[in-house]
């Protein structure tokens, strides 16, 4: 089992005829993701790696019964793409695009919620349930099927942690990159709840970073609602205040959002925080043995 995506995922790729969309659609299909179609206005009838292209998401859903969509369109068009997917009845929308204006995300997110759908991203690497489905741009070869859930605000740092997990014999149920922007869709609390309720997840790795107070809220949530072992890594202890560290959301503003506050919040509720990403497997194993 897994969360959010599995063998039943029927994926369409919005922006499939673009360079990134085409490249990653092919990669996802090769991995075994059930990519049922793609969209690109005016390109109906074309094929990308054997995947049929439609003019609209509505057409794609009607023809393929897709339930999930991944977005690769350029930032100025991402809001429209997210709303189009929600309007067409897609229930899980993953936006990979980086640099989407924040107010566009605010508006699209509200609309997606009204339509009863969920959003992951923008500015995220997507998610993977190893051996079942990968939606996004993740390097599939480092993942292994298993029982650890992974939640992260970052891309390559997630891979670093996953690589360490896999090397230590700890496979993953699902790994989700939630995205590095200030406003993104599904976040720690929703995903912690999904992992807590997933019978095939035994432990959870959470990778946070500076900016905002989502980690503090996650710590509170874990205290109240999560019984499974959790281990955390927080990036950005050396980040200076007021500077955006690559991710639009990674910024310490008015002295809040620091790594130290976040680490303290987890430690206060008994969740171990790794000094280095490579410590995560041991921190989880120790807790699993003591259960």
């Amino acid at each position, binding site marked *: 089992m897994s969360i959010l995506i599995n063998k039943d995922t029927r994926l369409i790729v919005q922006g499939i005829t673009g360079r990134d969309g085409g490249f990653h659609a092919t990669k996802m299909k090769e991995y075994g993701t059930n990519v049922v179609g793609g969209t690109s206005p005016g390109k109906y009838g074309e094929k990308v790696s054997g995947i049929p292209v439609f003019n609209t998401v509505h057409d794609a859903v009607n023809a393929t019964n897709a339930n999930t969509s991944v977005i690769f369109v350029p930032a100025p068009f991402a809001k429209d793409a997210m709303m189009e997917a929600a309007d067409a009845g897609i229930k899980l929308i993953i936006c990979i695009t980086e640099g989407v204006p924040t107010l566009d995300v605010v508006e699209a997110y509200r609309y997606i919620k009204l339509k009863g759908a969920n959003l992951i991203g923008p500015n995220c690497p997507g998610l993977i349930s190893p051996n079942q489905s990968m939606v996004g741009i993740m390097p599939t070869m480092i993942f292994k099927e298993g029982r650890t859930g992974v939640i992260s605000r970052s891309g390559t740092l997630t891979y670093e942690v996953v690589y360490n997990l896999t090397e230590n014999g700890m496979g993953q149920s699902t790994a989700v990159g939630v995205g590095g922007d200030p406003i993104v869709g599904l976040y720690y609390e929703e995903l912690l709840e999904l992992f807590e309720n997933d019978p095939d997840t035994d432990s959870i790795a959470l*990778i946070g970073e500076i900016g*905002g107070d989502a980690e503090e809220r996650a710590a509170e949530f874990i205290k109240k609602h999560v019984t499974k072992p959790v281990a955390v890594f927080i990036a950005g202890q050396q980040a200076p205040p007021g500077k955006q560290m690559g991710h639009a959301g990674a910024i310490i503003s008015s002295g809040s959002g620091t790594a130290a506050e976040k680490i303290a919040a987890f430690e206060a509720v008994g969740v171990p925080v790794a000094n280095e990403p490579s410590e995560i497997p041991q921190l989880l194993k120790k807790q699993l043995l003591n259960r």
Partner: protein
Amino acid sequence: MKIHEYQARDLFASYGIPVEKSILCRDVNDAVKAFQELDAPMVVVKAQVHTGGRGKAGGVKLATNEIDVRKHAANILGLDIKGFIVDRILVSRAVDIESEFYVSYVIDRKSKSTILMLSREGGVDIEDVAHTTPEKIHKIVIDPLIGVPDYLARQAAFKLFDDIKQVRAAASILQKLYKLFVETDASLAEINPLVLTPDKEVKAIDAKMTFDDNALYRHPKIAALFEPTEEEKKEQKAKSKGFSYVHLGGEIGCMVNGAGLAMATMDMIKLYGGNPSNFLDIGGSSNPTKVIEAMKLLLSDKDVKVVLINIFGGITRCDDVARGLLDAFEQIKTNIPIVIRLTGTNEKEGRELLKGTHFHVAETMGEAGRMAVELVK
């Protein structure tokens, strides 16, 4: 992106938000002329810098005559406020104040929306209010699909005023400010303070706005107001090459693919007793051209004594990354020791390729951090 108060005031005025008449000045004589032109019993001389705390730093002074205007202008121009040197001052009509309020729209991560923040505690540092008496700040989540309709603006204005005339005036300001916020893709639009004058007028006497960098492409007029500091110029130059760069000042230069991993690398260096010189994310992939550009950037910082390259090879395999690095360093001649740590797909093959070269090859992030710190000594 930040702008100056006078620029935010212009935006306020163009949206019909009442602000006092003011004139921007670059020298003392300008300030005196402005005082004469404003023909007001009292003016306020305000430093225009991209930082808060101007009042405490002596950057805001009242004057009722030419001598004082001249004196304050001379003192404020050239003042260093948190590292920003004042090169412009705003001379504005000063109003009598009966009471002060706080109003702002800001992006709120928790509600994933814009929120309106209001308080009867205006004119002070709002973060202090939030800290000591959070109950005095009202927060209203704005639904982006309906914005701020009349009823909501009134409801909000009643949090600040009791008299219906004042409520109506404030409600109109709240609606205009929201319109400005949305139409310019702001991340903050703040009036602190919004004041009530003795003759019961509601006015903005300060203006602060910051904007979403990701949306500047559709606001060329606002983008044109960007005034980068020396550091920001370097960051901008890096950005135009597809990098995210932040200067920190230590002696170990870092080159990493991915923002999260780049932050973790800085932390690692500190953990092992060194000081990272920078944050540098060269993006998801790593080709030789990018590596060369990144090295040029790092080596332009004369404090850098060691460079640590930490690359996660995902879709691009480590052996390909290693070949790229070897290519790149054939073209860059440098005596600075380079520590390379490759991880991910085909990492052993990648490390094998780098063996016997002048690179210091580490297996783990920890080892790379230790090696880099050791090499500085």
